[in-house]
């Protein structure tokens, strides 16, 4: 039982295409948006939905679940941080901080 053989075995399991990774989004209440809760492994959409239910809604967290294949998510490149996000830093006038939000508005 060499460590090398074990590692190879582990990496083969981890890379098993039968258990894809899915991102889980949960909506806790009516009127709120789905929020990212985490991720699960599952072979297909139905099992991903069930896995998400079993892992992330055990304490009454959810009214609705979305699961999305992780590889369907298009992510920004961290090295693009400066060009994508820093230009907004100098535009304070875009923040609605000059207004008082009335309590009646609730979640914004």
């Amino acid at each position, binding site marked *: 039982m060499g460590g090398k053989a074990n590692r190879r075995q582990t990496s083969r399991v981890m890379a098993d295409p039968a258990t894809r990774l899915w991102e889980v989004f949960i909506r806790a209440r009516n009127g709120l948006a789905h929020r990212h809760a985490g991720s699960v*492994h599952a072979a297909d959409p139905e099992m991903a939905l069930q*896995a998400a239910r079993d892992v992330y809604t055990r304490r009454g967290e959810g009214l609705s679940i979305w699961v999305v294949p992780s590889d369907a998510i298009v992510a920004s490149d961290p090295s693009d941080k400066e060009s994508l996000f820093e230009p907004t830093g100098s535009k304070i006038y875009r923040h609605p901080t000059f207004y008082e939000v009335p309590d009646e508005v609730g979640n914004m």
Partner: protein
Amino acid sequence: MATTSITLTETPQVQSYLALADDALVLGHRTSEWTGHAPLLEEELALANIALDLIGQARMLYQAAGELTGHSEDELAYLRDPPAFRNALIMELPNGDFAFTMARLLLVSVASDQKWRSGFADPVLTAIGEKAMKETAYHVRHSAEWLIRLGDGTVESHRRAQDAVDALWPFTGELTASREPWLRAVAPVLHRATLQQPKDGWMQSGGRTGRHTEHLGHLLAEMQVLPRTYPGAIW
């Protein structure tokens, strides 16, 4: 100092509560044995959730039986010997492999779900059923989807799923009063799973009258050892 077992006067009503409660407790305990051994973290939690649903159902039913017998739910769970248990034999069979676990969960959950949905004259059981049927509906869904994937999966997963269904089939006679609705619900799942539906033949029985397999004693020994060794222990 060990605690002595309790003996009950079993009216038909007490016996009907105990049959439902013992089914749920024994299968709940078996399912909980997967904790730490499931093939995926996701399935680990799914099985733990199912085990907790079943043990929760057992608690409500033992409380109802307790109203009639004067015994607490803990006494009913921990201080009866195997011949006093009224569960169907299929509940106490060892978990086997994952296919066996999922096949049993399906065969049992279809019966439980139909039982809860069929309604009861007894308002206590009706109230418990309102909660339980939402849980059993999910148990059916989860186990059916797994069995379909195992049956219609690889050569090995198909063989294991078929072996499980074949081995379990003679234990399904105790699950239902009328078999037709149960067969109508189970057959399409087996079909989608590309599994052969075994022929109905001789059926195992005896669980409802306390004639159990050798496995129940071992299960209860593990489940009951703590409260029997340290009576009244709390944590």
